[in-house]
């Protein structure tokens, strides 16, 4: 506090009016500058959307939205672009990831917030954070080193005749581990806001702790859990490299978890090299990026709005 006072006294106690005017002018200019920067960076959202759309126009002039989204024919050299396999690939991988990650993360959050002794809590939380810092490509390497052989040698043989291990299952497992920290942190946050008195009310009626969680806590936390899931889905949709390395990258629609898949981000990443040499290919890839962008944008906004409403309700 004292350092600060000396800082300002040196400038405020020179009472010349021109210094005053200069300071105010400087303040005004800087304010305008900051406004510009803020508006510019926020408008990125619009600019990206418009840019991607603009680049997709050549493609949209040739094929309708309907064909693009439902056709399974992908022959760039013939100018046929059906995105259906890639959309399905994305859905399969994301679906598997959520099915694995949501229950595990929910149970973990419940344990951390409701049951774990303080020592365990303190020991555990850094590792969940560290997990979120690991770069996606490392997850991909781990997927190749650990998950692929696991599936190929130990899991698949029970179900199918032969599998290379490269599958949507592998993509889903790797993605699930990547989104653990996200779901755990949001749900934990939401659980912590549930008032102890509400839980006490249930306990006072003779319910066990678990019954209280089942019937009261989870109900109260439901919007937050949904928001976390929606956010996690949008994160999973956009993950590129980790999934690319373990998915197989075959442009066919998966019919079982052991089939290969080719999610949208992988499509973009794998083919950007040929983008400029085949006509309309660059439009196609930009269209894929636009699809991703729109879906993720929507999911993000929905999730953030839910979370914001929750926050406001609790602040009352």
């Amino acid at each position: 506090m004292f350092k600060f006072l000396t800082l300002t006294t040196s400038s405020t106690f020179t009472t010349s009016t021109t210094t005053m005017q200069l300071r105010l002018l400087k303040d005004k200019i800087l304010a305008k500058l900051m406004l510009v920067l803020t508006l510019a960076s926020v408008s990125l959202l619009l600019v990206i959307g418009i840019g991607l759309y603009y680049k997709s126009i050549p493609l949209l002039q040739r094929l309708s939205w309907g064909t693009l989204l439902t056709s399974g024919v992908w022959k760039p050299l013939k100018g046929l672009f059906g995105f259906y396999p890639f959309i399905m690939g994305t859905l399969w991988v994301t679906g598997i990831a959520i099915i694995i990650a949501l229950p595990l993360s929910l149970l973990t959050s419940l344990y951390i917030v409701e049951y774990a002794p303080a020592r365990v809590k303190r020991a555990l939380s850094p590792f969940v954070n560290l997990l979120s810092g690991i770069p996606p490509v490392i997850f991909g390497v781990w997927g190749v080193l650990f998950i692929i052989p696991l599936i190929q040698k130990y899991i698949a043989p029970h179900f199918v005749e032969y599998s290379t291990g490269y599958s949507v299952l592998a993509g889903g497992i790797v993605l699930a581990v990547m989104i653990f920290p996200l779901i755990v942190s949001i749900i934990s946050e939401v659980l912590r806001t549930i008032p102890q008195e509400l839980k006490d009310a249930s306990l006072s009626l003779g319910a066990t702790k678990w019954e209280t969680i089942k019937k009261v806590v989870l109900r109260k936390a439901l919007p937050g859990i949904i928001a976390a899931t929606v956010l996690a889905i949008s994160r999973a949709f956009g993950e590129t490299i980790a999934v690319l390395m373990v998915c197989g990258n075959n442009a066919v629609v998966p019919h079982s978890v052991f089939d290969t898949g080719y999610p949208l981000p992988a499509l973009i990443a794998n083919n950007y090299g040929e983008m400029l040499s085949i006509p309309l290919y660059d439009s196609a890839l930009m269209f894929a990026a636009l699809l991703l962008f729109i879906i993720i944008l929507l999911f993000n906004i929905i999730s953030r709005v839910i979370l914001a409403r929750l926050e406001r309700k609790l602040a009352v």
Partner: protein
Amino acid sequence: MTQTPHISVQHLNVHIANQQILKDISINIPDKKVTSIIGPSGCGKTTLLKTFNRLLDNTAGIKITGKVLVDNEDIYDPAAEVTHIRKKMGLLSQRPYPLPMSIYDNVAYGPRIHGTREKAELDQLVEEQLKATGLWNEVKDRLNTSASRLSIGQQQRLCLARGLAVGPEIILGDESTSALDPVSTAIIEDLFISLKEKYTIVLVTHILRQARRVSDYIIFVYMGKIIEFGPTEEVLLNPKQELTKEYVKGYIS
């Protein structure tokens, strides 16, 4: 006093995080009467109340020694079943906390947990308790709407009905009218007076007027110790201890 005590506290000491909150408390709560616990803020009255239904069990750093006998069974006995004990008591807290479900489900919550499944039985239970707390006519047409839509006074009565639905013997009230307007407060106070025919009631309150109106007995707690205990009129108008005299000094009937 020759009635059988419903709750008998013997040499109860409570420490929370190395601070002693309750010091060697020994008291008998009379059966089917209203007993109010009064005292200045922070003296430990809410803590004392919460030891009755073992709600303090999960507080961090808590240490409890001594006995609390309910119907002559020590509830702090290691072999005792907590949920069973809590079922004997209904707790009404300072602010109403309706469960995130419909009015019907709120009241039916307790019975369902303890095994009552028959719809007819639950229907009857819900109606009975809502009538007992005077809510029935106000909500009978909207039993399936969310409980949070009720006014605060109604919510508190709902919480009372909810607590009564599990068939307790004892009702505990922790400053349960402090969030309510005068009309709702009067309704709840009247309910306590009428309910004591069937239940033993222990209330924590800092409103001396309320204590006088509602209770048969008063316990005065100061700094974690019981200073005085006796019939209402005696403690409030003719206190024997200096500290009690100081505390009720401002109170003119």
